[in-house]
């Protein structure tokens, strides 16, 4: 599998990364190198192996359904760029 410049641009947009056109060629090359390493894995026969969701051989610990958190909204809002009436304010989102 290899990526072209357009695909890299699209991925960058989805991840909200800004890549200058001058950097594009280089980024595509680097990403393709990484994918090349991945391709090596494809040479191994994994037909009998189950997909692994997590490297730890454990299952998820569960917690009791209890409210344990206090209201820290004042502290959280203090470090937000903009707030009003207890809300976080962001540039207008157009639906």
């Amino acid at each position, binding site marked *: 599998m290899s990526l072209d410049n357009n695909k890299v641009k699209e991925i960058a947009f989805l991840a909200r990364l800004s890549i200058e056109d001058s950097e594009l060629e280089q980024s595509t090359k680097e990403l393709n190198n990484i994918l090349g390493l991945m391709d090596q894995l494809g040479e191994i026969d994994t037909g009998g192996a189950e997909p692994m969701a997590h490297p730890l051989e454990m299952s998820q610990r569960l917690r009791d*359904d209890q409210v344990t958190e206090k209201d820290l909204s004042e502290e959280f809002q203090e470090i937000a760029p903009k707030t*009003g009436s207890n*809300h976080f304010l962001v540039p207008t989102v157009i639906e």
Partner: protein
Amino acid sequence: MTWETVIGLEIHSQLKTKSKIFSGASTAFGATANTQACAVDLGYPGVLPVLNQEAVKMALSFGLSVNATINKNSIFARKNYFYPDLPKGYQISQFEIPIVGNGVIDISLENGENKLVGITRAHLEEDAGKSIHDMYDEFTAIDLNRAGTPLLEIVSEPDMSSAKEAVAYAKKIHALVQYIDICDGNMQEGSFRCDANVSVRKHGDKLGTRAELKNINSFKFLEKAINLEVERQIDILEEGGSVVQETRLYDSIKNETRSMRSKEEANDYRYFPDPDLLPVAVSEELLLEIKKSLPELPTEKKLRFVEQLGLSSYDAEILTSQKEVADYFEAVINKGADAKLSANWVMGELSAALNKNQVEINDSPIPSNELFVLISRITDNTISGKIAKDVFKLMWEGNGSVDEIIEKQGLKQMTDSSALESIIDDIISNNLDQVKQYKDGNSKLLGFFVGQVMKATQGKANPKQVNQILNEKLS
């Protein structure tokens, strides 16, 4: 040219846990903005989500209620997209292996027939926060209290072929989640939300391109939105065009659906397993424990109403379609009221009064024990069914209990047959013409005499007794 409609629904059902799915913040509705959003919900660096076991149990209750496959090891994944009400930049959801797999539910159609609708999957995920667009001119305000509230997303197969079927399915799921007590079902507050995938095709063709309808917060709007969308797609196809796969918002004020282009570009969610969460293991013991704790389900209750109480399938369906209605009805009959009569009263007078005054059955001014007394007064011949309706009305208006009203208004049925006989004798002697016609074969006139007796007794005569005496005296 006939078109076939194909509908599948995605239902987001907020689970009734006290705390969030991955944090110990409260899920209570209506708190001051952002006072129930902790560091985990806000996506602060260094926090770790820990799964709420109640949310897992609720998902399993649902799975068992629709005879679904339960995945013994399910996996949480990150669904990546950017939106201000999702501070982490991803929603924790389930993708490849959801906790609940294939299931099935039985829905009742308007024509009385049943239909099985497949459930593709149901998975656990976290809700996003709320964006408020009309609070400030230059800003969008964000309230993250809802962020992290547990959701069960229930995905159906594209098995529905009309808006009405889609509504019947949605109502069935709505009733079920309330029966098993995993969701409060409040559509106004957004606890139960429906998205509809709609496409059309010519009979026998492969599936057409679908549009996803969002922003539907009532069953009425669900039906309207689907019908609008079906019309729109047929118009496009009949003019030789093609339907675009997209998300469309339903606008209940303008009664139209419109394209939500903003979401189109971001359709690649780049799911991957969440490294912060391990696979969720479900043991046989846990499944058994949940199976045992499940209440009687609507379908089972309906069957019991038909088989044990002798109700019609139609009546049983109506009485079990809402848990609160079924509970009320059962409270009435458990005190010993006649089942069929109780069914008629609950579905008749009571439902009509509730609808007319827009009151929920749990807030009924006539509690179940008063309706039981009222029905008992009919069966023990204290009052007639007709008078009972007047008593019901007076009781609804707050004029006291059944027995107080009967006493105060002097509504007791006449039980003294000699008094009744003398009234009937008077009526007969005052209406000799009608007596002659009746005896000449105009049997319809019996109704006239019954009416006269009821008028003379202000409805307090026992109709059965009146009929009996009239029959004797007129033969």
